[in-house]
């Protein structure tokens, strides 16, 4: 066991609130967990030695001022700084059908969601279970059509360890847009886990922006449960930071559910990014489309593990997973593992993974058209991830992200 985890368990003993019974269950599980090493399959390519002896402040006085804004996006912002909700909840103007509550007080929706969607095997998920005292509970009433995005911001400031939790219930036939936005570049550890329950015929548009940089350590997850005929359209955009590890679980718990999941990762030199996605097809007639694309800069390391699990009962499932990667330099590294585990026979499943460098012929073509090499490389490489950016339904968010990602990419090319 690591020194840090021992300390987590000790601190967990001091957390006493209305979620005590759920927390003590998680604590019991956490005590049974071994500290992951190279032989732990889920952490095979991601070393936790930087976390093992971590000793950061667990309280902070930081305020909202530093939290990132998204220009041009008219969203309802719920801002967490170092795990504390700093937005004034009383002044929020909410559209019809939206209820937002803090996790601090007892709440029916929270009771039904806390730890119910997120699989128990995520080590840091359990840490979040026992330590995340603050969070939000978003409840979308049945048949409410909420077009205004709700943005949950997680800002981690230098020298602080923090834990935040989001619980979202999208009622039957309702529509909602949720953005999880993480940021911070100081030496910090932030865990942020979100659980979503999407009822029959409901639709969720979801974004997770894991834009931590520099010395930040960010571990988190977004976990979805899809009921009959529900829809999920999710896009994840990640930087690497010192260590970023995300787990996304999508469970088809009802029939005829549809999930689209796009991921973009853009790793500047020395960053580490690890994404594990698991799609559970537990019911028949489900559809999943997953596309992951990454560009990996010098001495950066990307890990992608995409698992599709089709249960015996889940006939007529259509599932596709595609992972494409570009390594920019010799020092860059990618470890990818698209997995299929299939127990039903009448299904169509495919996965593909590629690792390649830039197409010489395409580059040559552009050079003959008088485009200088650097610019041609940017166009070709960035075009590769931009394709997924164009698929984002929320144009305002895409338009804000596009120049930011492009600038980051140009810097990556210069640093080579």
């Amino acid at each position, binding site marked *: 066991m690591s020194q840090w985890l021992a300390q987590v368990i000790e601190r967990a003993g001091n957390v006493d609130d209305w979620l005590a019974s759920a927390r003590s269950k998680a604590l019991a599980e956490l005590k049974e967990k071994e500290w992951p090493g190279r032989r732990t*399959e889920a952490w095979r*390519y991601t070393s936790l030695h930087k976390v093992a002896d971590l000793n950061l402040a667990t309280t902070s006085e930081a305020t909202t001022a530093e939290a990132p804004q998204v220009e041009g996006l008219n969203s309802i912002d719920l801002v967490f700084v170092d795990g504390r909700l700093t937005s004034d909840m009383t002044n929020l103007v909410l559209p019809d059908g939206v209820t937002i509550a803090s996790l601090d007080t007892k709440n029916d929706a929270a009771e039904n969601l806390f730890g119910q969607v997120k699989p128990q095997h995520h080590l840091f998920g359990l840490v979040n279970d026992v330590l995340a005292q603050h969070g939000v509970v978003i409840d979308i009433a049945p048949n409410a059509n909420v077009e205004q995005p709700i943005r949950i911001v997680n800002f981690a400031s230098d020298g602080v360890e923090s834990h935040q939790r989001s619980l979202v219930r999208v009622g039957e036939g309702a529509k909602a847009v949720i953005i999880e936005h993480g940021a911070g570049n100081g030496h910090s550890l932030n865990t942020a886990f979100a659980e979503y329950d999407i009822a029959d015929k409901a639709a969720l548009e979801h974004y997770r922006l894991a834009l931590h940089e520099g010395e930040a350590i960010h571990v988190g997850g977004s976990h979805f449960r899809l009921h009959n005929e529900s829809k999920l359209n999710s896009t994840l955009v990640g930087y690497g930071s010192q260590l970023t590890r995300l787990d996304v679980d999508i469970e088809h718990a009802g029939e005829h559910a549809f999930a689209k999941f796009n991921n973009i990762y853009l790793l500047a030199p020395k960053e580490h990014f690890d994404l594990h996605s698991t799609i559970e097809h537990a019911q028949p007639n489900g559809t999943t489309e997953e596309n992951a694309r990454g560009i990996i800069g010098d001495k950066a390391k990307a890990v992608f593990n995409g698992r599709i699990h089709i249960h*015996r009962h889940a*006939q007529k499932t259509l599932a596709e997973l595609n992972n494409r*990667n570009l*390594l*920019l*330099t*010799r*020092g*860059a*590294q*990618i*470890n*990818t*593992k*698209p*997995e*299929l*585990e*299939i*127990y*039903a*026979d*009448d*299904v*169509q*499943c*495919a*996965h*593909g*993974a*590629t*690792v*390649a*460098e830039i197409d010489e012929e395409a580059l040559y073509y552009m050079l003959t058209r008088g485009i200088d090499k650097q610019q041609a490389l940017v166009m070709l490489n960035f075009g590769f991830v931009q394709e997924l950016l164009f698929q984002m339904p929320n144009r305002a968010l895409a338009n804000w992200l596009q120049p930011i990602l492009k600038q980051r990419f140009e810097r990556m090319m210069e640093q080579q």
Partner: protein
Amino acid sequence: MSEQIDQALERKYDAGFVSEIESETFAPGLNEDVIRRLSEIKGEPEWMTEWRLQAYRKWLKMNEPEWAHVDYPKVDYQSISYYSAPKSMKDKPKSLDEVDPELLRTYEKLGIPLHEQEMLAGVAVDAVFDSVSVVTTFREKLEEAGVIFCPISEALHKYPELVKKYLGTVVPKGDNFFAALNSAVFTDGSFVYIPKGVRCPMELSTYFRINEQNTGQFERTLIVAEEGSYVSYLEGCTAPQRDENQLHAAVVELVALDDAEIKYSTVQNWYPGDEDGKGGIYNFVTKRGLCEKNAKISWTQVETGSAVTWKYPSCILKGDNSVGEFYSVALTRGKQQADTGTKMIHLGKNTKSTIISKGISAGRSNNAYRGLVRMGPGAEGARNFTECDSLLIGDQCGAHTFPYIESSNPTAIVEHEATTSKVSDDQLFLCQQRGLDPEKAVSMIVNGFCKEVFRELPMEFAVEAGKLLEISLEGSVG
């Protein structure tokens, strides 16, 4: 229809019988004394005994791997007898006439009569009956070409320097749990040495056969192809029916020096266990080849037998421009479990590898592909293409794909594709419309599905493999 299916599914294992030959067998159990005695009986040099003991000590510290997608009762390694030899072998037969007729009949039942084999199109057979090699044919013809093809125990006496130089260089004695066990207790196997520039005049083949009850088989094969040489090696197996689970932990090492080429083909049809998965062979095999400059190693396997298969024939592409290939058809039915695939480790520049894996699951079986493609930092311009397709027949089976891709060179290109589907109703309908019965239709569709792999097999194996698949699929259609 379903009656036919049931009948066909209850088909008994064709090669299941026990031949009664008196054997000298060690009492079950494993310790350093057993290894010393084993080594002594085989008259091995001192270094070999020490090598085995080192492997044993490593093995003691290792844990049985649990990461594979297979589930089987734990093997009690102390209940296995580690040596058994047919008694009539005491006074080594010089020709087929001196061989125990009972033994010869065993082979005949299996359809590999040695007399005929001698006349057959240039196939030399090193037949392994339990643990002692019985007869080696065509030895002289091979000797003319300078090719050494003999039991590894004999090679230890005749060519100790060669064996010592290469044994354990590709699969180290502590490589993994089963390889370490094999290194400690291997009884026999084949040794092949192809001198510089020689193209082996015939295809080499070995038939393995597990016979003695409770006897694990620990074969060790070492093939060394010197610069610019070529050899094609065939391995086929079948075993008699019995209830006790039998362990098979073989190690195969291939060394292909500069410009050499080794083609290694396997048809594996060991007893898969009965309808409930009782009995059947545990096949835990370590196979690995090392390619030097411009060398090529090609693994082709057709796996239809065994209760549990754990097998990953691999290539270490160390030399520049070397090539690795893996073609596999794995068919599981009943309660069979297979976790098989390959590892392609690209170290040299411009190395290339191709992986074609076809998995077919029927009945209540589980079939997993597990592969690793690693592009080292020095693998400039390296290229890999992987295709693994799974076919499901019936709704009680499972097909799984676990490909690991690790790349740390920007100029290396890795492509992986996998699909899973079932035999489509449209395909079946089309075939039946043309007058084929459903069984023939499925057999044809599956054969087409496996075509890319069968194409790689030597002629006589391709025929055998096609037939095997057809028999195995009988009654899986509905």
